[in-house]
């Protein structure tokens, strides 16, 4: 697995809890609509980012490996 992740928030699912930006302000921010998004194209792979994705109550966040395109979260 590579050390960079491509992290996306699905705007159709996101209900603007703001939890991602509150938990990891370096990796996530809120846009003008209050929806979460990653602060850059790719993020360094980390337990913290994975935990943010897992803790999103509607699982609006998905993670793929930036090099291999392999799905990191959600599993399956």
């Amino acid at each position, binding site marked *: 697995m590579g050390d960079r992740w491509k992290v996306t928030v699905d705007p*159709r*699912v996101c*209900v*603007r*809890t*703001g*939890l991602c930006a*509150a*938990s990891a302000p370096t990796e996530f921010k809120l846009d003008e609509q*209050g929806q979460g998004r990653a602060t850059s194209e790719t993020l360094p792979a980390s337990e913290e980012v994975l*935990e943010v994705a*897992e*803790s*999103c*109550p*509607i*699982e609006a966040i998905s993670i793929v490996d930036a090099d291999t395109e392999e799905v990191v979260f*959600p599993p399956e």
Partner: protein
Amino acid sequence: MTTAQPPLYWDPFEAELAKDPYPLYARMREEAPLYRNDRHDFYAVSRYTDVQRGLADWQTFSSARGDILEIIQTGMEMPSGTLIFEDPPVHDIHRRLLARVFTPRRIAQLEPRIRAFCERVLEPVTGADRFDLVEAVGAEMPMRVIGMLLGIPEADQATFRDRTDATLETGDGGRIAQEDILNTEGFQDYIEWRKKHPSDDLMTELMTAEFEDENGNRRTLTDGEVLTYCTVVAGAGNETTGRLIGWFGAVMARYPEARRELVADPSLIPNAIEEILRFEPTGPFTARYVTRDVELHGRTVPAGSAMLFIQAAANRDPDRFDDPDRFDIHRVSQHMSFGVGAHYCLGAALARLEGKVAAEEILRRFPDWEVDWDGAELAQTSTVRGWKTLPLVIRGA
């Protein structure tokens, strides 16, 4: 001559209106998108976009004084750790401690245990030709699940549930007593006991989880905070989910065609639960405290006002949902019943799972029923809407 409509008046405390509030909500969306009630001194919005924007805007519409109209109006001090009565950033710090436990994936792992509880509560009524769904399942199953999560011994779980239900029950026109809303009596003893007997439950996790507080100090929660957390989780998880199960029974009796579809194809159940949540939300509205003057529909809502966001009205906004008063288990929708923004229901995944499991197990045992509507009774509370008793008459029993 046209028949004049009676003047638009909505009283959230009135029992009669709670029976079928939807025609009135439709008028509010249409005629008074910013509704003002002088008698009870509050404003209300009912359109989807207004509810969605407002609930997400915690800077303007604060939870720090509570999310229940009569509690906001008392101006009572809120203890730390209530979550539902806090704003970011303190709210987010406190919520993160619980969020790990309530993630959709961790909740999904509980399914076999939740199903076992459900099977157990259904056992006594299996084969019956009539039973009260609320008494048998709605009041029992969520209590067992929350009790298991918190680590409360089974013998004592009913005492906690009954205390919350009694607090929320208000009677026609009644209010919640402020001294009752965060009554933590009872949990105190468990916290003392749990400290000496740690387990893999939520209470233990809350007592031991280290976090950085709003002042930058690394610490664990105080006993008082753990106590408040547990009270809030137990209170929020019992009654609301119980009422969801009640609505399942009621709505399925009203729409037998949908019920037959679910019996034939249980994979449709999760989406049907979403539609029941949209159609008959157990928490029809949420109150917030207005922190600054705000313009809405050409009027100024002054700072210091109370604002009610009527999610049950937003859920039937024709600008958002096609044919909104039609119950359709195939509808794909994003309803407002779990809220939006920072206070999006922490237990949403758990409620959905409990609703799904209850529906599966009930339909498997009782594919066909009617409700004895004369014997059914709506619970009267100013916060939660649902059945207090719902006698099912089983067909083909």
